[in-house]
């Protein structure tokens, strides 16, 4: 399986570390909404198909990446830096609350 790092180019999966499901939205740290925390910790989509994931190029540039991987074929349909997305996700969260 090859993952295309936006900085280093296509690299073998052995250089990468899986950092978890990319669909999770962490509640505000002060949130007391137990359902939201429960969903953040336990609920997973578990799709048979395209899945948003966070990977780290730990054996290369060490950047965190947002990757869409097909769980049936391992095909990587997109990859990019997670940094910008993280800010966008926080913004979405802040404007929502």
């Amino acid at each position, binding site marked *: 399986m090859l993952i295309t790092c936006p900085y*280093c180019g296509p*690299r073998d999966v052995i250089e990468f570390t899986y950092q978890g499901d990319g669909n999770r939205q962490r509640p505000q740290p002060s949130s007391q909404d137990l359902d939201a925390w429960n969903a953040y910790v336990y609920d997973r989509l578990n799709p048979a198909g395209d899945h948003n994931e966070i990977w780290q190029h730990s*054996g290369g*540039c060490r*950047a965190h990446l947002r990757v869409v991987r097909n769980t049936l074929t391992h095909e990587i349909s997109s990859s990019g830096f997670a*940094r910008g997305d993280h800010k966008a996700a926080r913004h979405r969260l802040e404007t929502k609350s």
Partner: protein
Amino acid sequence: MVERQSPLEPEFHPGSHGNFEHGVEIILSETRPGSILQLAAWPGEEKRLMSSIYKVAGLALPDGAGGGVADGVKAAFGFAPGKFTVVDEAEGLASAFAGVITPNIGTVTDLSHGRTAIRIAGPKAEWVLAKFFAIDFALPAFPVGAGRSTTHHDVFAQIQRTGADQFDIYVFRSFARSFWKALCHASEEVGYEVQ
């Protein structure tokens, strides 16, 4: 300054080795630079960091991922977004950068004692390195001056191409001897010389 001991010493045997009856096709050496620095820019400060590298070291870095330059005495290359390795034969580069890279531009980390620089040169250098790392070593894909970060069996390595058939590899000092032995074994079949 104290004299630095090479971690390769017990396994560093100058001379020709391996299958060299038909000629030596690999030259291995330790470049022992006085300064090895890691410079990191905060997001958005990359250009200012690159101009600081030009100001202090006189090296004009090209734009783009992994871009680098080497002039035989000093070398610099990008190895991650906003992060650069800068190397100098002389000691004291960290203090030269400390005054220029202010805390609002980024950080300076002195790795001079933490990394070992190994040089592999010769017509079969690409071929030997291809046994170690799953990256493209062909000249169009990996131009002279450019840098790459990758791993060999979990040993993190930064590689800079410093000539058409010459590469400088920066590895953790603690893993350097084992990496060096592996490099020697991999070079045996084409004949190598340790200088």
